[in-house]
């Protein structure tokens, strides 16, 4: 009787793990499609696809948001199969995913503060507030926040504090991107790459990504402080 129960439990855990793995692949694909059109791990810029469907590159946002929606739908059966395991696994995946994204985003900015300061200036946000003298210092400090709070989210037990900081960074990105769209500045987000500070109107795609990713960050900010290994302890 106990063996049968344990075997059923193991099957449910494996089922939940497989669903969460597929969900994380979908969200990685979705974020890549939204964030890196024409450059990194994307599907809509593949030559074979463009041969069949020449306008596929226009639909990267639709595909990205669709993939994120499928991810959300896959989490529901994973949670129902094995609630305890799904919550723990989701916390690990969210911490590694969001923390890793922030670490990755900070590297280019730390390497070239001048270029990032130029990019921040294009938003014209500080000049509108008559505090444009803070632009350079902001461009110096902000990538460091991204790097160290991203690292803290993955490698320390202080998930509440790091997620709290990252949540407010997301809020600031959303305000900045909404500002850029409202004022029709036509600038690139500058979230992951510094090339072409003013050559693409992609701010709205980044806004969609941030509006999706702020929710798991809020969930992490409300969760308990524990290390990645501590999550699995009873």
């Amino acid at each position, binding site marked *: 009787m106990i063996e049968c129960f344990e075997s059923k439990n193991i099957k449910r855990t494996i089922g939940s793990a497989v669903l969460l793995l597929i969900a994380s692949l979908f969200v990685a694909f979705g974020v890549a499609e939204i964030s890196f059109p024409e450059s990194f791990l994307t599907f809509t810029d593949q030559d074979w696809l463009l041969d069949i469907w020449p306008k596929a590159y226009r639909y990267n946002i639709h595909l990205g948001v669709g993939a994120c929606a499928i991810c959300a739908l896959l989490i529901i059966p994973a949670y129902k199969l094995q609630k305890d395991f799904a919550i723990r696994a989701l916390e690990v995946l969210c911490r590694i995913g969001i923390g890793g994204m922030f670490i990755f985003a900070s590297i280019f900015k730390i390497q070239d*503060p001048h270029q990032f300061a130029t990019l921040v200036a294009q938003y014209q946000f500080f000049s509108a507030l008559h505090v444009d003298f803070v632009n350079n210092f902001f461009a110096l400090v902000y990538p460091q926040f991204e*790097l160290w709070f991203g690292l803290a989210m993955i490698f320390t037990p202080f998930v509440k504090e790091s997620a709290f900081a990252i949540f407010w960074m997301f809020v600031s990105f959303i305000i900045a991107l909404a500002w850029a769209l409202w004022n029709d500045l036509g600038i690139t987000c500058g979230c992951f790459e510094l090339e072409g500070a003013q050559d693409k109107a992609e701010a709205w795609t980044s806004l969609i990504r941030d509006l999706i990713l702020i929710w798991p960050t809020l969930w992490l900010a409300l969760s308990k402080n524990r290390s990645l290994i501590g999550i699995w302890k009873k």
Partner: protein
Amino acid sequence: MLCVAVVCIPVAFAARAAKAYAKKLNWFVLIGIALFCIILAVVNNIRVGEGKSVEWIGTQDVMEKPADIL
């Protein structure tokens, strides 16, 4: 009166929850990481050298909007 209550009651609950949440946060860690980041930002600006470094206080020029998205 009802309108005031509709606005004030949720605001009061939200403020209470925010206060309780702020008490749970480890401010020592948060401020510690923030100060560490500021120190590293200063070091990084010196480390990257001429060309890539910026003035401590100031801004950069705003470029002209490209014609293709005007």
